[in-house]
Each structure stands twice: as C-alpha cells, then as structure tokens.
C-alpha cells in the first residue's frame, strides 16, 4: 500500500531527482590533533569548561608567585643575613639560597669533624653502589650484591663512621653525627633490619605453633597500633631502664632500635600479604618433594612471595624514609633538624630564611621518595607484564 503511493508520487513529480549539486557539509569538528584533544579533554561540555577555566585561574594565582619566590627574586649569594634582608632597592626578597649554600656542608654532615668527612663520603659511595646493584634487575650477581648490601656495607660502615683506633681512624662520637648522614644511616638501618625481621615475623604469624603465632601477632599489632613517636619515646626513655646501667645504649642506637622495631612490624604485614598470595599448591608441592620447612620457604615460597611484594616493600621504605624525620624527638640531628637549627640561627635570620630551608628540605625528600616510588611503579609494571603473557 505504502509502496504504491510512493511510486505514484515519484511518477507525478518528475523533479524529485535533484538536478543541482548539494554544497558540501562543513568538515566534522576535529576529534584528533591538538584541537580535538582540547575539545575532548578540556572543554567537553559547559561544566568541564568552567572547571578548566577555574583551574587555569588557580594556576595563574599560584604558580607565578612561587616562581617569583624561588627564582626571580631569590638571593643566590651572600655571606650572612644582610644579603637576604629586604632593602629600599629590593623591597621584595625571594628565597634565600645563599643561606642554603652557606649551610650546605652542615646539612650533609652535621657536626662530623671536617678532616674526617671523607669517611662519610666513602660510606655514601659504598651505599650508592649497593643500592644500584640491588635495584638494577639485570645486574650481574645480584646475590653477591645482596651480601654486599646487607653484610659487607654495615660492617665496613660501622668501622668507618664510628672510627677504630686500631687501623688509625679517630673515634667520632655519634652525638657529632648529623644531617643527611644521620637520615641515611637511620633509614638504611631500618631498611636492612626490617626486611629479615619482618620476614621472620610474617612467617611466625602464619606458623602452626600457637606460641610463635601469638608472640608475632602481639608484637605486630602492638607496634602498628601506636604512633612512631611513642615507640621512639619507649626506645629513648624506657630502653635504658631495661638494660643494666653499664650497657645503656647511646642516643643514636636507641633511635635505631625504635625505628627498626617499627619498620619490622609494618614489613611483616607486607610480607604476609605476599605469602598469602602464593597458592596452596606451591606449599603442598614443596612438601611433596620432601623439602623441610626452611628449605620450602627459602627455595620455593619466599622467592615468589617477595617478588610480588617488591612494590609494597619499596612503598614501606618510602614511609620509613619519611618517618626518620621523627627521630628529632629523641634529640638526634637528622637532616630536617639541621635545617631547623640553621633556620633560627641569628646569623641568617631573615624573613624568607625559614621558607627557603623548608623548600630545600622538601626538594631533598621529594627527590628520594619520588625516585623510590617510580621504581616501585616500574617493577609493578614489569611484574604485571609477566602475568599478562
């Protein structure tokens, strides 16, 4: 029925077929290229456009003053506070980088005696080699690297830094240590001790022996349930009470014990998560071929569990590295403390000194933590690739 009417229409109006060319439609709005990208990701819809404009305004409000402070009006050289005080010619003074330059070696070494500072440099170099060896996943003989990092460096560093009159190195009291040196020593001791202790605690928590399990759970939950400050307080004021007077540990050692305890508890939970992710068949298979408990753990379970835990382990290390700033509470001059002390030094008292010191410290911590987190992300991506195969 419908067909017939249409047919008749065509027959009646002979002009149905268009005689002239239709003008080309305008090209579709770009979906690719710069314009397309901007439309899709900046101005998609009115709400998005408003948000984009607000964000741009926010950036305009924030970024130029920061650049101004950090670079344009910054003071780059000078001997003391005079350089960084606002004067009639320079009413606006930005960051006082001269202060950082002047105090740089104090920030790195603290009060470590100047003629002995090469020892610290050697320690840093040894540590850098060890870290590079372990982190570079294709490096040769990484087992030797682990041995070097976890055994050789600690012993050599201890002799090197504290000194040993036997081989002609003057004793340097730990109360003179400071700055980046202390930050690195504290975080590195935390790193070196937290992993093995954490693994033991994690194994203990998954153990079949009720007493072992109980003690592990109590330790882990106790330490994780309280703030690091109170653990440090405990190490600082209670530990000396618990040991005979003659063996009272020095301040740095107390802080190191506190940090190591704290980091181990967190590491234990990270490792436990890795252990739980290993399928039961792996345990059963290992037992079926007649391996004992420690052989099973060392040869079969831990290599797999630790591999998938690497990103979380590194994240724990980042937390640990940031937490080392809290050792100030027990009277140790870590990097942040040296900045704090220098900032209120009358020699450099100027309006922008504090902010400059904090910005410098922030850059230091950011570089280390960001590098670690990028590494963790990389490893995660690599592991993900292996699983996606």
């Amino acid at each position, binding site marked *: 029925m419908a067909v017939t009417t249409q047919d008749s229409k065509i027959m009646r109006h002979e002009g149905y077929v268009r005689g002239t060319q239709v003008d080309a439609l305008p090209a579709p709005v770009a979906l690719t290229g710069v314009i397309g*990208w901007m439309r*899709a*990701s*900046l101005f*998609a819809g009115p709400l*998005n456009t408003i*948000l*984009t404009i607000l*964000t*741009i305004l*926010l*950036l305009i409000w924030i970024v130029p003053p920061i650049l101004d402070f950090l670079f344009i009006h910054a003071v780059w050289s000078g001997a003391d506070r005079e350089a960084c005080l606002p004067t009639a010619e320079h009413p606006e003074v930005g960051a006082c980088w001269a202060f950082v330059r002047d105090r740089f070696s104090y920030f790195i070494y603290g009060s470590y005696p100047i003629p002995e500072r090469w020892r610290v440099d050697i320690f840093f170099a040894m540590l850098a080699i060890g870290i590079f060896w372990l982190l570079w996943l294709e490096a040769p003989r990484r087992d030797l690297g682990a041995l070097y990092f976890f055994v050789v460096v600690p012993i050599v560093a201890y002799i090197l830094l504290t000194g040993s009159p036997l081989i002609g190195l003057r004793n340097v009291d730990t109360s003179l240590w400071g700055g980046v040196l202390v930050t690195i020593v504290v975080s590195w001791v935390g790193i070196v001790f937290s992993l093995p202790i954490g693994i033991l605690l994690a194994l203990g928590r998954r153990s*079949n*022996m*009720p*007493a*072992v399990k109980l*003690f592990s759970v109590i330790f882990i*939950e*106790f330490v*994780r*349930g*309280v*703030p*690091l*400050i*109170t653990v440090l*307080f*405990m190490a600082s*004021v*209670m530990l*000396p*009470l*618990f*040991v*005979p*007077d003659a063996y009272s540990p020095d301040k740095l050692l107390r802080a190191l014990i506190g940090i190591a305890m704290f980091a181990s508890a967190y590491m234990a939970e990270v490792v436990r998560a890795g252990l739980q992710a290993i399928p039961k068949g792996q345990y059963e298979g290992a037992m079926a071929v007649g391996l004992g408990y420690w052989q099973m753990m060392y040869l079969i379970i831990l290599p797999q569990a630790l591999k998938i835990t690497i990103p979380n382990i590194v994240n724990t290390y*980042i937390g640990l590295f*940031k*937490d080392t*700033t*809290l050792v*100030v*509470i027990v009277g140790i001059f870590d990097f*942040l403390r040296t900045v*704090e002390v220098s*900032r209120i030094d009358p020699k450099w008292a100027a*309006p922008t000194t*504090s*902010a400059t010191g*904090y910005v410098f*410290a*922030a850059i230091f*911590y*950011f570089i280390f*933590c*960001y590098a670690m*987190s990028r590494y963790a992300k990389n490893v995660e991506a690599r592991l993900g690739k292996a699983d996606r195969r």
Partner: protein
Amino acid sequence: MSIAQESGPPKVALIYDPKIRSIAYQVILCAIILFLAWSAVRNAADNLARAKIASGFGFWNQTAGFDISQTLIEYSAQGGTYGRAFWVGLLNTLLVAAIGIVLATIVGFLVGIARLSRNWLIGRLASGYVELIRNVPLLLQLLFWYNAVLKALPDLRDSWSVFGNVYLNNRGFFAPYPIFGEGIGLVVGAFVVGVVGAIAFRIWARKRQERTGQQAPIGLVALGLIVGLPILAFFVAGMPATLEYPEKGRFNIRGGMEILPEFVALLIGLVLYTGAFIAEVVRAGIMAVSKGQTEAAGALGLRTGQTLKLVVIPQAMRVIIPPLTNQYLNLTKNSSLAVFVGYPDLVQIFTGTVLNQTGQAVEVVMITMAVYLTISLVTSMAMNWYNARIALVER
C-alpha cells in the same frame, strides 16, 4: 606379621618427630621471652631505685601545676591533676583527629575523583598534588605550615579582620562564639527528633519501595527533618542565642572563639597529607569496578548519576573501606606529631610535660601507648563489623 609391622606408625627418633619438635621450639621461645621480660623488669627496678624515681600510678592525683593552652574541659594549673591533664590531652587529640578525618575524607574523595576526571588539566593538577604531598614528610609539612605560613601572618596590631568580627593574626584565628540562652534545649530536642525521624522515614521508604516499587524523596525529607526542624524550633523558642564577638585590645583579643595557630597548622597538615593518601585509595577503589558494570548499567537505562549511586559506588566502597580505615587510623596516630608544633595533644601533654615532671617513664609511655592501641583496636573492630556487613555475599 610383616604387614602389621608396616602399617604401624613409623618409628623415628624423638628429635625428628614434628610434634615434639614444635613443642620444644615453643618452650624455648617462651623461655627466652620470659627471661628477657624478667631481666628487663629487674633492671628497671634497679635503675629506678638508684635514680630514686617512684613507681606506680600515685602521680595520677597529684597537682599538675602547668598550664595548657587549649582545654575542652575545665582545667587550671593549680587545681588540675595529672589525671585531669591526661583527659584534656586525650580530648584535644580526639578533637583534631575527628575534624581531620571529616575534612581529609572530603579532600580525598574530591581529589581522587578529580584524578580520574576526563579533564586533562584537573587530572594533572590532582596527581601533582598527590605526588607532591605523598613524597614529603608530614613533619616537614607541619613545620612549614606552622613556622613559614602561620607565624608569618601579621601580628596582633595589623591583624587581618573582617568587619571587626573575625580576626586572623599570628596568634590564631578569632571568631564570634554563640552563647546559648534558655530554651536551647528545645532546639537540641528538635534536632534529635529530626535525626530519629529521618532514619525512621528512610527505613519506611525502603520497605515501601521493596513492596511497591514506589520511590520516596528520602534526601529531601531527611534534610527537612534534620535541618529544618531545629531552625523552626529555634524561632519558636524565641531565638535563644547571642553571638559573643571577639574584641581587639592593644595587647590581646578578648572574648569570642579562639582557634590556636598550632591547631590550625596541625589540622591543615594532617588534612592535606591524609587527603592525598585517601585520594589514592578512592581512585584505586573506583578503578577496581570493571567497566562492564558501568556499561551494563547504561544498557539497563540508568542515567550517569544513578549508575554512580546504585552501581559503581556501592561496589567501589567494598574496596575503599578497609584501606580508608587504615588512613583514618594513620591520621589519628599522626596527630601525635602535634608535639612538634606545640599543640597540646595527648603526647605533648603526657609524654612531654608530665613525663618530664614526674620522671615515671614506664607508666607514662605505657598509658599513652594503651590509649592509641585502644583507639586502633576499637576502630578496626568497628570497621571489621561494617566490612562484614557490606561484603559480597557469595554462595
């Protein structure tokens, strides 16, 4: 004969019997730990006796004799005891933690969603914020806010002020404070009735929806009951509240509500820091909901808002809740960094001043740790209960 021998339990030396071994290990472990504990206690008793430090909790009722800059309950240097100081500190800790948790949740959800935004600029800005904040120690941030920002505000004479009612200077933030008169009980009562009514209405509306499929405007009714009813009661009672304005003198500001710069610095630092971590938690939670869920919701004809509310968020919350709880606990524990900016929290008052005055390290540190442990355990228990409630019910 030989069959009976083979089927019997294999004969091994006692030392290789797993059961006996396990018992031996545990006995040795217990012995070591008992020995360590015993020697620690003995050494502590020796050392304390030599230093002539009292032990026990007798100090709890002694006069404290020091002032505290922010007290939520009545406390004075002369009349206050160490025990009272403990409660003041605990309340201050809980105050900053509670406000911090609310604000950090808001910041965290906003930033977490912003990171997933299709808007490139907002996504970048949010991830820049997260990366910057997460990779700088909290202590450094607190010191920055306190020493470089709040202490750099103008001093009393040049205070920033809004209409002479609100003042901001390096001594803190001063705002009008409401003083309630008679009849305020009616408003409080109306608020309680409103909350109860809203909950009851929600239950009724849910039941009705399950029965008949009809939806009720739960949000609007709840808003009306919780906010509208108290406002109505306020006017009915004859507006029983006046504002006390801060008055600026030459040397100080009197009256009104005073918020310490220490409190503000601690709060800003905790909120921004924890907010960045919560943002990551939220992002991971939303990304954990597979795209198929959103597409299926779209295919069923749900709008974007409904998809979020009914499909994505309920599933994301399952992933978000456990790490979110962890972040709340971290914030509470990190509030102990108050000691570095001088905000009188539990750690600053108790392990700081009280410990220094009494010298009773063991008792003081143990009490402080017990408080944080209790908070942690109670929170985890509450969250485990909630988690079990919303957990996926599988066959």
